[in-house]
């Protein structure tokens, strides 16, 4: 199993002077190539606390870097750059810049939880991955993932009505992610449905679209859920040192 290896020299750390003369010697171009210091001096010491405050990240300080999570990882087997052990370490030490470099792969965790069962210290690395993806999003380093957009549309409906109307979830998801509704698979699905001509089902579908049924007596539950969600979101943003309400 490959251990995560970072190339120590990044292109941006290679410096070359186009025109440089030192002591009368022309060292222009590749003669003046040098590597900028790799030593780190910039640390965000709040980072561990921030991840700890988000759901899933509670036990990150337990990690002792054995690498069981990375060894067990489904995604790591395909992409050696996906290394939960390494990211946990960066977070614990506050190497923010280094972590943000991997923002485009951190969210690829498939939540198989093999790491969860391998971890001898019960760190819950899968939860840490979730918390980290959430952290990157809240801090504005990454955009919302499509799955997050879907989850939001889905849960917003449940919160509002206590019910799910599949057609609406689908329409909202396509709209919010800027995709046309006429997806080939969706068209095929609808055509297949129409061809069988289930009159009663189609009538119910049509009625639901128009009347948006609600669970009886949902108002109280809705208020409680909204209150709770807002509480958690406010706490999350506060822990990360962000304003009460960020840009959606």
């Amino acid at each position, binding site marked *: 199993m490959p251990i995560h290896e*970072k190339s*120590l020299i990044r292109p941006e750390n290679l410096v070359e002077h186009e025109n440089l003369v030192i002591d009368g010697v022309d060292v222009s171009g590749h003669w003046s190539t040098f590597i900028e210091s790799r*030593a*780190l001096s910039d640390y965000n010491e709040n980072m561990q606390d921030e991840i700890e405050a988000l759901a899933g990240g509670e036990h990150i*300080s*337990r990690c*002792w*870097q054995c690498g069981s999570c990375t060894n067990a990882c489904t995604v790591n087997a395909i992409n050696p750059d996906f290394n939960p052990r390494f990211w946990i*370490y960066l977070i614990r*030490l506050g190497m923010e810049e280094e972590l943000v470099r991997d923002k485009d792969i951190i969210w690829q965790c498939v939540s198989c939880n093999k790491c969860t069962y391998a971890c001898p210290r019960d760190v819950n690395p899968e939860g840490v991955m979730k918390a980290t993806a959430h952290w990157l999003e809240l801090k504005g380093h990454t955009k919302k993932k499509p799955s997050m957009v879907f989850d939001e549309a889905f849960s917003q409906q449940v919160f509002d009505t206590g019910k799910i109307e599949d057609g609406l979830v689908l329409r909202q998801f396509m709209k919010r992610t800027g995709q046309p509704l006429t997806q080939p698979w969706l068209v095929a699905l609808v055509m297949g449905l129409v061809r069988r001509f289930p009159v009663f089902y189609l009538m119910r579908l049509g009625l639901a679209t128009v009347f948006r049924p609600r669970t009886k007596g949902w108002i109280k539950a809705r208020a409680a859920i909204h209150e709770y969600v807002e509480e958690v979101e406010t706490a999350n943003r506060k822990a990360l040192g962000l304003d009460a309400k960020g840009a959606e």
Partner: protein
Amino acid sequence: MSKPVLIVGGGPAGLSAAHAVASSGHSAVIVDKADRLGGAPILSGYAKLVPSHEWASDAIGGMVSRVDRNKLVDVHLNTTVASFSGEPGNFTAMLKDGGRIEAGAAILTTGFTHFDSVNKPEWGFGTYPDVVTTVQVEQMLSSGAGVKCPSDGRAPDRVAILLCVGSRDRQIGREWCSKICCTVSANIAMEIRESLPNSNVYIYYMDIRTFGLLEGPYYWESQETHKVKYIKARIAEVTSDGKRLLVKGEDTLVKRPISIPFDMVVHAIGMDPNVDNMTISAVFDVKLNKYGFVEKPSAYLHMGETSRPGVFVAGAATGPETIDDSIAQAQAAAMAALNMLRASVMEAAE
């Protein structure tokens, strides 16, 4: 009645041996070069002990007063054994202050000497006042003065504890693991975090050896509850930028050179053989092992024996040792000494 048991050194092991000998109705004589009993925990001013969390002054102080009260134990302070002659059951020890002790057996509980960090100059001790040892931090805690930077008395914001200072190092001829420093450092780290909640404490390690049951209450507890951060690196050098200390090394887990500012650097110093071991070896005619500690024969068939019959050994005189194990070993050595005396009395009777 056979002659008393001579106990050389009045630290935890010596106090334990004296108590064990006296408890079985036999007399004991303690000789200690210091001006009071208690050994390293008392003389060096340790704070809370591992694993009991009791203050050293209470725990070891209790052992001292127990021996002080015991009429069967005679104590000679401020002196050392200058010569030691005779045979098992009939030894004569001449003290440096002119005293003379007739003894049936001797137990060496001469302990260790703290490693002197000056021997690792690259880590800044002796050059920068804010580079201190674990013993100094223990004293800051036990005296009630609190953890402060010696240079200007400010409370440190960032503290680095370097493990294996004077241990596991061929460069300075110390190839042993001092066994207790990992746990002591975790303990100190937790105490610093408790007294200075805004501080950040980092431990630089090669391995963490909080052996046995100490794993949970020290290593894990310090990480999980007290948020002490462990970094796998052996520090290359400690310098200063004029304001703060600069710790340089390689963070081996990310394969990256590190250069981090700190307010205080603590050396987790190891246990050296007692500086007097060459003298002790010559006076008592006991062999030292290749590291300079008092040699013990096979661990399985002998109780606290040395290379000389009638002279026994216990505690950190034989190698890095915990207080608890020193106490247990001293009881075993006391039993061995009493057994030998009883056997020689029976032989004489026949």
